[in-house]
């Protein structure tokens, strides 16, 4: 932020104020969406009376542990790819040294960071997984039939910050600063879009599993995994 005030340019704008705006939109958007769903669910009348914490947790546990559901065991490759994809996708940006240094610069807080070589491997993994997921989307007929522009778009938006971040760090393709600028902007676009696109499955997942898990476990006494 200070840098932008001292030297206003598109680079410092994307590095400072836009990041805060992106985080603000992400969090406000996410909580607004969650609040909206919870209010709508009240209107539906048959959601809350049947919710059960025990079976919500049972359901979530069986779906966040690899191969804990019959469905995942039936799709071994897809499961491993998506798990690796999501783990790297979430942990790399949080524990990347370069990101933590930016937090330190603004808020004077820091936490454990990934060694650069591992962060590199994880970034490349995200990109490779995304390519595999894209290929699967195009090749597998049932998934191709289901896919819309939004699905391809979501995948591109997600993977773009990783590609640009990697290229910038290794000073490939474009000038370092320009690539970094693209990286900032693509990351900000992703954050802003999460609450309003398919990427909202990030937080809606917990809500649908709570409903279905409770409905299956507490009410219907059968397994949803």
């Amino acid at each position, binding site marked *: 932020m200070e840098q932008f005030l001292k030297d206003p340019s598109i680079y410092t704008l994307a590095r400072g104020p836009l990041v805060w705006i992106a985080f603000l939109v992400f969090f406000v958007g996410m909580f607004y969406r969650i609040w909206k*769903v919870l209010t*709508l*669910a009240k*209107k*539906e*009348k*048959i*959601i809350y*009376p*049947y919710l059960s914490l025990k079976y919500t947790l049972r*359901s979530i546990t069986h*779906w966040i542990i690899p191969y804990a*559901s*019959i*469905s995942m065991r*039936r*799709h071994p490759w*897809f499961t491993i790819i*998506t798990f690796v994809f999501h783990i790297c996708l979430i942990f790399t940006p949080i524990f990347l040294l370069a990101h933590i240094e930016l937090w330190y610069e603004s808020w004077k807080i820091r936490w454990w960071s990934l060694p650069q070589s591992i962060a590199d491997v994880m970034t490349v993994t995200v990109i490779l997984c995304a390519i595999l997921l894209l290929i699967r*989307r*195009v*090749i*597998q*007929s*049932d*998934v*191709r*039939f*289901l*896919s*819309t522009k939004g*699905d391809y778009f979501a995948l591109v938006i997600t993977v773009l910050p990783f590609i640009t971040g990697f290229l910038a760090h290794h000073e490939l393709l474009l000038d370092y600063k320009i690539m970094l600028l693209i990286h900032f902007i693509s990351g900000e676009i992703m954050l802003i879009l999460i609450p309003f696109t*398919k990427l*909202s*499955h990030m937080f*809606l*997942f917990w*809500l*649908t*599993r709570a*409903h*279905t*898990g409770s*409905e*299956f476990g507490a*009410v*219907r*006494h*059968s*397994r*949803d*995994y």
Partner: protein
Amino acid sequence: MFGKISFNRKQVIDIGIDKTLETVSQEKINKAIERVLKKEASARLKVFVETCMRCGMCTNSCHHYLGHENDPTYAPAAKVKQTIWDILSKRGNVSKEDIKKYARIAFTECNLCRRCVQFCPFGIDIAYLISLVRRICCLIGVVPQYIYDQVLSHMQTTNMLWFRQDEWLDTIQWLEDELKTEIKNGKIPVGKKDAEVLYLAHGLEAKYMTGLLINMAKIMNVAKIDWTVPDTDGWDYTVKALYAQDLETIGKVIRTHYETALRLNVKRIVIGECGHAFRTAIYEGVRYLGWKEPPIPYIHGVEFFYELIRDRKIKIAKKIKEPVTIQDPCNIIRYKGMGKMLRYIVRELCENIIEMTPNDDHNYCCAAGGGMIDAGPPWKTARIEGGKVKAEQIRDTGAKIVIAPCHTCHKGIEDLNDYYKLGVHVKFLLDIIVEVMEIPEHMRA
């Protein structure tokens, strides 16, 4: 590999769909869509539609997909894409041709068995989304004729086959006479107050399958159950309105059942071996009426037989020796977890049990459920094709008897048996219990 995938189906004429659409106005279609998608449905519809990542994990959980040579248009999510998503992306401006396609998918290519829900990483209730499509079709009046006729019958008579109240009483009377030829002083008490059990019958038990009602009466008499049947309309436990998603008629029928039970002051309602009725009575019906749970216990045949055998109220004289296999009806297993009780009963009745794989709450549907068999002869091929997986499962067990504790599964598997030449007998638990139970000498007529 990259060929275009399209919705290709052989033409089938159903007057309930095709003829009705000729007279339906565009306004009526728009109104129905508006009512269902904007007023009746809310959180679940919105979240389910937005959360689906089109990952295809549900695809091969569906017996229709597997039964149609992995045609992607039969995949669970694809059925939602071609109906609900289509309506939403067209902002409700859909043509009559579209409605015809939606009706075909919702009524004849999905059994609402909810197996796909178990395979979805987000737990998206696809069966619920498909029932919304049925609801829209129902409000327009576009429902397979055979289902619609039964719904109309339910509206007027609370039973599925236009039976009048006096016909019911008359039927019970002659059935009691028949019962007496086998059980000394056998009784079918009608409208008795304060009884332990109110028995409701399947509509067909009063007309074409009266043997089932007599068998139930035998068990009640031998087990010395304090029971009764209704003396008024509301004796038929079926609720075909579930298939059409005619919520108002569901409410009317279920309310009649509970009101009859409360008027007769019985302790609980017992029904025979039927899936959809049980499910509607404890979920859809009570929820529509604004209750969280049934006002008095509503017991399925499997639960009832389980108690009788566990408490030794009926004794088993000899076990069945032939190899048997068990069909798990979705509406009582995946919807109510009765798998263990069912297996306990079968173990008590039979010596040689060979399980299908997968089974219990991961079973495959018989492909006749959720109204597909009630959609009548025009759609028989649809369920025979969809039932291919079930037929192969049964053939693989090598069993000679299939125990199907559900009217729909029973008839559905009988048809699969004929078509796929499985060479099995399909039986209700009731058939087998009566065959193997001990009838004390002094009770024999």
